[in-house]
């Protein structure tokens, strides 16, 4: 990745941590594209859906953003998380051997029948307590704002923020290594 990418992404991430939502949305979209490319290159056989890994990586980047040092480059941080989540995805699907990703790509290069599975994240969302689930799905799937969600559910905006935060943390935790 180019130095321009690096500079731009760190700038966006710093702005996001300072509370700039638009910078964060921009950052996440770019990261999603980068990670999608990375994951698709690494996953050659079926069984692991690249988009699941993209989503797990974005969630991990979000809940672990306090581990990024603002004076350190952001791309190595992002790719380290993406690689970890990718290996984890393989592992969770029964390949428990610790191997380099490049070897995985070579060893399992044979095409398998592709299974159209439900997104992993939906299963995690379904496992949330009802209050958190309705907040997370109102904001994500229905695209409502914090204020709209609060009005719709008849709770305060603070309660919505808390439920959203806890819900996302719980989903991320469910994706943790098992």
């Amino acid at each position, binding site marked *: 990745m180019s130095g321009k990418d690096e500079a731009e992404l760190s700038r966006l991430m710093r702005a996001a941590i300072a509370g700039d939502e638009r910078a964060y949305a921009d950052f996440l979209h770019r990261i999603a594209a980068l990670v999608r490319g990375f994951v698709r290159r690494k996953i050659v056989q079926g069984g692991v859906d690249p988009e699941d890994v993209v989503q797990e990586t974005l969630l991990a980047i979000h809940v*672990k953003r306090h581990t990024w040092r603002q004076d350190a480059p952001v791309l190595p941080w992002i790719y380290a998380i993406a690689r970890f989540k990718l290996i984890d995805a393989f592992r969770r699907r029964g390949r428990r051997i610790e191997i380099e990703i490049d070897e995985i790509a070579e060893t399992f290069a044979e095409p398998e029948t592709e299974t159209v599975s439900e997104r992993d994240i939906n299963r995690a969302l379904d496992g949330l307590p009802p209050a958190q689930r309705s907040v997370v799905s109102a904001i994500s799937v229905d695209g409502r704002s914090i204020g709209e969600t609060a009005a719709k559910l008849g709770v305060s905006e603070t309660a919505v923020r808390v439920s959203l935060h806890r819900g996302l943390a719980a989903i991320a935790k469910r994706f943790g290594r098992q």
Partner: protein
Amino acid sequence: MRTEDLIRALDADISSKAMPLRSAWWMAAAAAVVIAAVVFFLTIGPRPDIMIAMHTMRFLAKFVFTIVLAITAFGLIRALSTPGASTARAAAWMAAAPLLVAVAVALELFMVPEPMWSTRMVGSNMMICMGFIPLIGIGPLAVFLWMLRYGAPTRPVFAGAVAGLLAGGLAATFYAAHCFDDSPLFVATWYTLAIAVLAGLGALGGRFFVRW
């Protein structure tokens, strides 16, 4: 849920704050020192002749080994808990404490006549050493494993083992103030074993507790 939807949810949650990992590590270190100190002073405490012992090289050398171990392990574990951080230099520094012990053992073998070697190595405290270093270190180890969970170690088992070495270095620093066996031969044998117990526990903790 499409990735687009997820991004909307993450974006709405940007205002949630968490303490930067670096500051959290310093707080954890302070908490671990306090926990170790409390356990140490409530149980065995320092040896009565500590003021006299402080004038002997062998007694002081013990603290050099254990403090160097703790400091180097602290450097490494902070790097290990940060994704993408380079760990090579911090890992190389981990050789410092074993090297210092090796030099001290060589000097001891040179200075002490051979018939006394085994007495020095066995000492009089090995069971206390084997019991109390893990006992003093277990609280700090729990703190450090919790910190690994708060961080994002991409090698959780290795990071857990280093958490054990860090807890071991800290616990051994306190324990050294109690122990009457100051010979590097004793330290190289029993301290190492006791710290290895904590490193093993740490690796297990890394495997089963540190998930993210």
